């Protein structure tokens, strides 16, 4: 379960162009006891509140830069809240596109270290290893350093490692986008399993159909604030589509699919 209460997150960004960037100007600034002008603060999340329960899969949608990844990092406890708070009932694992684990190590060692880092015992790790390797589907590449992996392979292995243990909260940030169709299907099944184990899953994806198929709740962000959030996934997705200038389609899809699904 995750409770986010009036969350504000501010990034401090160093090295913007405001500074001339010479040694002399840096010295002058120190003499004058000025603050570094090159530090800019970006107010990435501006007051956000919501509650997600166990068993929920929450889709997070919004345009680039709307604060989706920042929100996930804050829920994972990796970013400090400037104001407000995030409450969770356990450990969170964040799966992002850029997370490379330890890239000079082989995939196999990453599997072992990842499992141990998540708190599995040596024996559990030995047992889980073949499953993880098999799930990731990277094949013989498992014995090569992760830096030679393709983007897709890297994210498959990361997903396989992080989902090997049932986390209380699993945060998936576009990590599935780079996988192929088969892997996407496998990972959907795995996310469903994790949900069934009463965890909470957050999913950031630009492919709305992925959210539609996986999530039972959705949050639409715009410039660090919630535009809409609720249980009506097709409705909100359609509104989002419309706001970004596309055709509404999910409501219709839901209505045609629902009778068959039951």
């Amino acid at each position, binding site marked *: 379960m995750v409770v986010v209460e009036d969350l504000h997150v501010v990034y401090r960004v160093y090295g913007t162009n405001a500074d001339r960037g010479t040694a002399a100007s840096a010295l002058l600034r120190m003499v004058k006891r000025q603050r570094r002008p090159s530090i800019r603060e970006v107010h990435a999340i501006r007051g956000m509140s919501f509650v997600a329960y166990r068993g929920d899969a929450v889709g997070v949608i919004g345009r680039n830069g709307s604060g989706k990844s920042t929100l996930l990092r*804050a829920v*994972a406890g990796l970013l400090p809240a*400037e104001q407000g708070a995030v409450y969770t009932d356990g450990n*969170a694992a964040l799966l992002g596109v850029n997370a490379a684990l330890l890239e000079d190590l082989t995939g196999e060692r990453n599997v072992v270290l990842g499992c141990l880092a*998540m708190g599995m015992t040596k024996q559990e790790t030995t047992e889980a290893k073949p499953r993880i390797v098999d799930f990731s589907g990277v094949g013989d590449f498992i014995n090569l350093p992760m830096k030679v992996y393709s983007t897709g392979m890297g994210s498959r292995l990361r997903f396989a490692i992080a989902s090997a243990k049932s986390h209380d909260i699993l945060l998936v940030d576009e990590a599935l986008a780079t996988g192929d169709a088969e892997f996407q299907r496998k990972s959907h099944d795995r996310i469903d399993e994790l949900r069934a184990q009463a965890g909470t899953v957050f999913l950031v994806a630009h492919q709305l159909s992925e959210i539609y198929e996986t999530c039972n709740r959705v949050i639409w962000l715009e410039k660090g604030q919630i535009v809409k959030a609720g249980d009506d996934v097709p409705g909100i997705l359609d509104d989002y589509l419309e706001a970004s200038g596309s055709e509404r389609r999910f409501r219709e899809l839901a209505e045609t*699919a629902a009778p068959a699904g039951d």
Partner: protein
Amino acid sequence: MVHFQGDSCPIQLTGCPGHFRRKLTVVNDRGRLSAPGKLSGAVVVEDGAGTATDDRPEDNHLIPPGSLRDLALGHGLKQTAVVPPLRSYIAEIWQRRHFVTGFATARNIAMYTEARLGQLWQVLTPLLNAGVYYLIFGILLGTNRGVPDYVSFLVTGVFVFNFTQRTFITCSTVIRETLPLIRALPFPRGCLPLGYVLIELQQLVLSFVVLFVIVVIAGEPVTPYWLFIIPVMMLQSIFNIGCGFILARWGASIDDVSQLLPFIVRTWMYTSGVLFSLQTLSLTFSGKLHDHPTLAYLLQINPAAVYITLVRWALLAEYRDALPGAQPYNHAKCLLYRTFPGNPHYVSYSAYCHPTTLPSIPSLWLWGTGWALVVAIVGFLFFWRAEARYGRG
């Protein structure tokens, strides 16, 4: 798939498609959309397309009525990004001990995979290190600096100091280097500096094998005193762990640390008697520390000097036998040493001097233990206090 559709269906909104593009001045009744008072005027809000969003009402059906804080605490939730209690933090690190050892071993193996000679570099690096110092100080300068068997003395000092030096430098970047791991998986971050110290310890064991070979070739006898090296190394490792924690925290937040560190560490090396004997400097008449006994004492109880002296004492018989106070006091012989420290005939006569301003070996053991415990505890607490802040950028 069946979707749960509660009372939150925003059908009412679908009727007004222009809703989101219109600038509205309604402020949410929770007041949540206004800028928080805590933020100073320096906040720059990256807001390319104007300020319309500030006034947009949110349509949020994921907020149950009542205080969210009470709801969270009522369900036994814990606030994220807060420092865990010390006891459970230590327990978690202990639980991850296999991760620490696995991490260290894997890094150690990966370190040389790109090199053609591979793992051989683990032995070659200390060997070449010793070779360079032997070339310059043993052959080119040909000095003994008032120490018997200068080459063994020097190589021992270099290897022992190198352990602390490398720990300092690698630990200052540990958080940056393992950022992807930190951002992907939850685990106590204290494991990482521990792992890095363990890497250096593994390297040290190999370089000590090299060192043993060198000193035996240089003519040192193998004695039971060598066993004392084990407790010294344990103390130094504990001291290094403490330092590693402190530097890991500093290095995580201030990049300037890793820029400055090489200079600090080098100065430390020169003041810890790696290349010359602090004892000679304070005992002999020409020594720079002769007139500053307090300074000489302080330099000799600094942790690096303590561990270096103890290892030399354990490893090098000639050095041990030449320590002041090793022989009954003899004024004439002591005077000869203090006047002509560089003369190879009198180099061992330091044994006949009074060990006046010099810390004795038992007191060095006490200092070594004290440094290790104090720095390790302070360092660990210092690192733990910032546990929630690692991995943020």
